[in-house]
């Protein structure tokens, strides 16, 4: 009896110890992941000389919004932001529609040819034509410098389609669909009136995935949209972040000479990183709780 309570106490103690150890480790990992982003945020509102002197590890120094002002004064970056918004919105609407158009028929168990059609799509997940043959087809279909070159060649996002298809199969009650069809609803009406409204959660996830993909993409634009005025934000940022060169338009707006221009370029680096990263970082937590469900549904029978 006595021994029993003792061991109970002991294990209770070790439970608490392991809880504390776990939380401490997780907190350290949190810090490692979050700190670089925090550091950029602080640097974006600090004087660049102080940033490079190591005075902004924790808090901003000589608080200023000049970096953000010059970002929004730069016509190239502004065009980039507008382009990115346009591509993200049009691309997301288009991709999610195509995704749904493919996923629903393939979720209908008694559709003749369903298996063949599924394989037809899934093959493209594993094999592709590669960079150049795809490029040549896009070129031959007249899409160079056309916004649709960003959306059409992607076709159906097969991985996401499988997730949506499995969601339809597992989470939408068959009885509802059968009842609607007995009442004389066509397949299309059932899809629009029942399936689409009942799949809002998975649609939210797909919308976010699609938005993130289009907002962050620059490679597709780099090869298919060579005109500089069509470049999305990340591609515009390439000159600033990777090549580290101030654009001519910036040089002409700065009056303080080379040193001032240099300072401005450094400030723009930090603030443009925040501007490019912020929209998606704000959005994803809203659908986070559906991620795990969605991934599970997709993993069940991929």
């Amino acid at each position, binding site marked *: 009896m006595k021994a029993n309570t003792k061991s109970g106490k002991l294990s209770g103690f*070790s*439970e608490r110890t*392991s*809880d504390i150890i*776990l*939380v401490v480790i997780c907190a350290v*990992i*949190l810090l*490692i*992941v979050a700190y*670089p*982003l925090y550091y*950029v945020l602080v640097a974006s509102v600090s004087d660049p000389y102080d*940033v490079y002197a190591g005075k902004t590890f924790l808090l901003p120094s000589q608080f200023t919004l000049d970096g953000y002002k010059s970002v929004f004064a730069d016509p190239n970056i502004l065009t980039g932001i507008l382009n990115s918004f346009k591509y993200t919105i049009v691309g997301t609407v288009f991709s999610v529609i*195509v995704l749904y158009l*493919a996923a*629903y*028929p*393939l979720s209908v168990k008694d*559709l*003749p040819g369903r298996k063949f*059609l599924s394989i037809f799509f899934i093959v*493209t997940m594993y*094999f592709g*034509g*590669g*960079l*150049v*043959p*795809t*490029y*040549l*087809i896009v070129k*031959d279909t007249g899409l160079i410098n056309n916004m649709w070159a960003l959306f*059409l060649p*992607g*076709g*159906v996002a097969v991985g996401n389609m499988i997730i949506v298809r499995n969601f339809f199969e597992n989470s939408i009650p068959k009885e509802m669909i059968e009842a609607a069809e007995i009442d004389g609803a066509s*397949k*299309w009406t059932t899809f629009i009136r029942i399936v689409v409204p009942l799949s809002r959660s998975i649609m939210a996830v797909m919308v976010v995935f699609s938005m993130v993909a289009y*907002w*962050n993409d*620059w*490679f597709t634009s780099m*090869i298919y949209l060579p005109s500089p005025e069509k470049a999305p934000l990340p591609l515009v*940022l*390439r000159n600033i*972040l990777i090549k580290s060169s101030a654009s001519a338009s910036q040089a002409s707006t700065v009056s303080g000479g080379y040193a001032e221009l240099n300072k401005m370029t450094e400030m723009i*680096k930090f603030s443009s*990183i925040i501007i*490019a*990263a912020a929209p*998606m*970082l704000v959005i*994803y*937590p809203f659908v*986070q709780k559906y991620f*795990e469900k969605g991934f*599970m549904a997709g*993993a069940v029978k991929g």
Partner: protein
Amino acid sequence: MKNQKSAVALQGRPLKKRLLDNWQLYAMLLIPIVLTIIYKYLPMYGIQIAFRDYKASRGMFGSEWVGLKWFERFFSAPTCVRMLKNTILLSFYSLLWSFPIPIILALMLNQVRFQRFKRTTQTVLYAPHFISTMVICGMIRIFLSPSGGLINLLLGSSVDFLTESSAFRTIYIASGIWQDAGWGIIVYMATLSNVDTSLYEAAKVDGASLFQRILHIDIPELRSIMVLNLIMSAGGLMNVGFEKVWLLQTDLNKATSDVIAVYVYQQGIENAKYSYSTAVGLFNTAVNIVLLIAVNKIASKISEDTSFV
């Protein structure tokens, strides 16, 4: 019973009637199918330009056959061996480091009992996954800058890491882990959420420590998904992502950063050597397929053996 009956009734109907009944579903598939044929299957068919001498005037399917000319040229290119080696080593080391980390993270996080804290940790861990490679590489360049970059400030040094070819792989892999390890835990967390909690309780009663519970309850639960993930990543061993390597490459770190994906882009898009670039890309894919089959064989062998233990 009722279900069986309706299934029989469905099977019994003539195919023509079933096709007609479903015409709206086939109509829905029209756009996805057309897009897939044009932009996925046609390029696959177009791979044949790897064996042709592509001329724009004669098109993808009408240019002259040249056999293995482009492959021979690639194998005799001075940087061929270096690129092959860099490609394989970069993804092998990546796999080695970035495969176990999400599993360890998920196992730990799954044992955290404060739901609020767990949730917040997950949210923060996912964050870097939603940032563009361009921005990530911009941050890497800023942090590694020899004058006033965060890393040099912390180390009190002034090393230009991106000009050191010995540092390239570390930079690539460490930043990759920072960006995607958090996202990688999702599938493991989802699997672990299926574990019956009464198992933990029973183990506690038996006096199992936290570590023992993880070892004997959680890890067996994750085994099949771990093997699956390993096979998938090993099969993509030659698929070094173009974007990050290209953005982090400098003239001075090419000894380790020169990889096939970048070469395919430079030859194909920048230099418009369409046939040559396609041939190099095809070779890359072929190696991948061989690897995938080999890893698959090994994995099924191992799981057979361990099932007897």
